[in-house]
């Protein structure tokens, strides 16, 4: 679809449909807009949208929830008890320990059919569905929508033996999802059981990687050693998802479903194409709990340059959380900046680490790094090598605290660990 056509669809859906609906029906949106004296009639162009529509964020949703006793934070545009529309109430991942419920009105496959096709799944195939229950049946419906059959596997270290067994016996062609902690669990199991992972996983044409990212070295182990082609998959501001294509040069999002802005993390000005900014998201389709100019706290790069695969929709690169950034010696450091340096050291190749962030600007970079407790060289030497590796990568010498890998993994949930700790 040409860019001008994408932009026309976006404007029609946003200005002509979504905004009036959200302003009329979402108590949070109306409260936020009324507070700055804006109504839906005041937003008739994209310029007016950028100039006039106020931001909302997670704190605003929680504050509305607590103030009004509304578990949905004022987002809902329809009564969740309308069982002719809704079948279930799911929840956000709640990494902070505070999940937000979200009514589900799904009827059939989601936009992910496009991604699953790109993974290489075709009608009649088996598809490894490795996730959690709280996401609801949307993924299942999408796998069925492509004509494939889901094979249910828990996203848990304890289920790795069944993952390998079902992969061998049923020969699935696609897999949703793999994560950093699951990579570690598979490696540990395979080492103990003597499993040939390249043989076990030889039927897969594509695997999504989401939740906890992995560093470049771990990605090479999975891609070269296990023979899996990974497709990074990320949420975009709670209004959709983005997934790599076979070019693996950014995650495609669908601009007929959402409008994404990359803005100055400390202000409202847009950053340039491809520059680091905070992701601000607006749905074009969600009439149930629409997010409009939602400051996600995610730092990203976005480009609208056409991809070598031929798609004209935008691409996004997830970089980290704004709240995870530390500034030390005048340098901005995100966990993603440290990954390659930490996993380059053999005992810490799992890439399990946390940045100790007492405040945004700190005098010293403090890291808690997980290491493989069994075997390896002496710990004193390990700390020195880690310090040198990080210093070589970012030019900042860290203070390193070493802990057993399991101590960090216990902080779960199973698909990711907190990358920033207050102490």
């Amino acid at each position, binding site marked *: 679809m040409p860019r001008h056509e994408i932009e026309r669809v976006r404007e029609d859906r946003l200005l002509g449909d979504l905004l009036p609906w959200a302003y009329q029906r979402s108590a949070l949106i109306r409260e936020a807009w009324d507070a700055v004296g804006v109504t839906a009639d005041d937003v008739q162009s994209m310029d007016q949208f950028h100039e006039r529509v106020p931001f909302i964020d997670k704190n605003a949703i929680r504050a509305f929830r607590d103030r009004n006793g509304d*578990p949905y934070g004022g987002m809902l545009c329809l009564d*969740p*008890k309308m*069982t002719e529309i*809704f*079948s*279930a*109430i*799911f*929840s956000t991942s*709640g990494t902070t*320990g*505070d*999940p937000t*419920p979200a009514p589900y009105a799904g009827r*059939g*496959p989601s936009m992910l*059919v496009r991604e699953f096709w790109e993974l290489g799944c075709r*009608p*009649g195939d*088996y598809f490894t*569905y*490795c*996730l*959690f*229950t*709280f996401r*609801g*049946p949307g993924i*299942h419906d999408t796998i*069925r*929508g*492509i*004509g*494939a*059959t*889901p*094979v*249910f*596997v*828990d*996203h*848990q270290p304890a*289920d790795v033996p*069944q993952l390998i067994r*079902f992969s061998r*016996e*049923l020969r699935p062609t696609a897999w949703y999802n793999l994560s950093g902690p699951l990579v570690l669990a598979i490696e540990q199991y395979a080492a103990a059981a003597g499993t040939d992972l390249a043989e076990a996983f030889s039927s897969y044409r594509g695997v999504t990687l989401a939740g906890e990212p992995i560093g470049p070295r771990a990605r090479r182990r999975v891609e070269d050693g296990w023979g899996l082609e990974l497709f990074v998959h990320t949420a975009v501001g709670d209004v959709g998802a983005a997934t790599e294509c076979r070019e693996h040069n950014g995650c495609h999002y669908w601009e007929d479903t959402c409008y994404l802005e990359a803005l100055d993390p400390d202000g409202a000005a847009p950053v340039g194409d491809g520059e680091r900014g905070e992701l601000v998201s607006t749905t074009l389709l969600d009439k149930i709990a629409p997010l409009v100019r939602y400051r996600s706290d995610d730092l990203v790069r976005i480009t609208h340059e056409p991809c070598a695969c031929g798609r004209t929709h935008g691409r996004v690169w997830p970089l980290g959380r704004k709240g995870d950034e530390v500034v030390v010696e005048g340098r901005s450091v995100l966990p993603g900046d440290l990954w390659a340096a930490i996993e380059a050291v053999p005992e810490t190749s799992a890439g399990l680490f946390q940045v100790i962030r007492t405040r945004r600007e700190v005098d010293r970079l403090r890291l808690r790094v997980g290491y493989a407790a069994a075997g390896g060289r002496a710990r004193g030497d390990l700390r020195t090598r880690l310090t040198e590796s990080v210093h070589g990568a970012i030019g900042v010498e860290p203070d390193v605290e070493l802990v057993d890998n399991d101590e960090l993994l216990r902080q*779960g*949930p*199973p698909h990711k660990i907190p990358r920033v700790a207050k102490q």
Partner: protein
Amino acid sequence: MTFAKRYEDPPEEWGVGRVDVDGEVTPWPVAQRDIDDEADSLAPRLAALGLEPGGLVLVVAMLSQAVHSVPLERAAGRIGALYSSADSTPFDAFRVAALTRQLGPQVVIGITGGVLDGLVDADRDPVEVLGPVRSVVTADEDAHARLRADGLAAKRWVKLGPTSAVEEVAGDGPVYDASRWRVEEHGGELVISNLAPRLTHAAALRTGIRGRVVEEGRLSVSVSA
């Protein structure tokens, strides 16, 4: 073939779950009609636990247990109720607590010892979290014993081969659907056969569950899987 056509005419296999057969995890393909029929069968049992139209059941399970958990979710819709989901792990215990507080479910089904451990680790009192719920149904003996010891009248959910047996309010043994399944006792172990058509046939399948058939449709279980 187009996506639209595939969605109108999806494969017969709805999914591949798993069932414990004689102590072994066994891949278990099921059809959409199997899930629908199990949901029809379970709806009155959820209603008997106190789930009402407009109410909500929180189903606590793992994705690998879809053959058993999805019929419970669909059964809620048969009643005109909603469902919500959480994983039955210590990690996800916070979600059980949060959704129970936020959504006020009439029934919470699938509580395990691991979930109770997760609540305790998070400094949450399981009785305080689950006490306001009309019916709390456990998925293992550990959780059942602990909640009973704490004074909650917990019921049992037993995964009986490819189907479920669920204890009702009276608490006099898990109830299975005798019109769809035949359950017999062989040497103290429950074995099950399907009477209604199923994609994967169960013929005297050893469930690994020790117990006996008290009367047709009702069990006494000494050790559940």
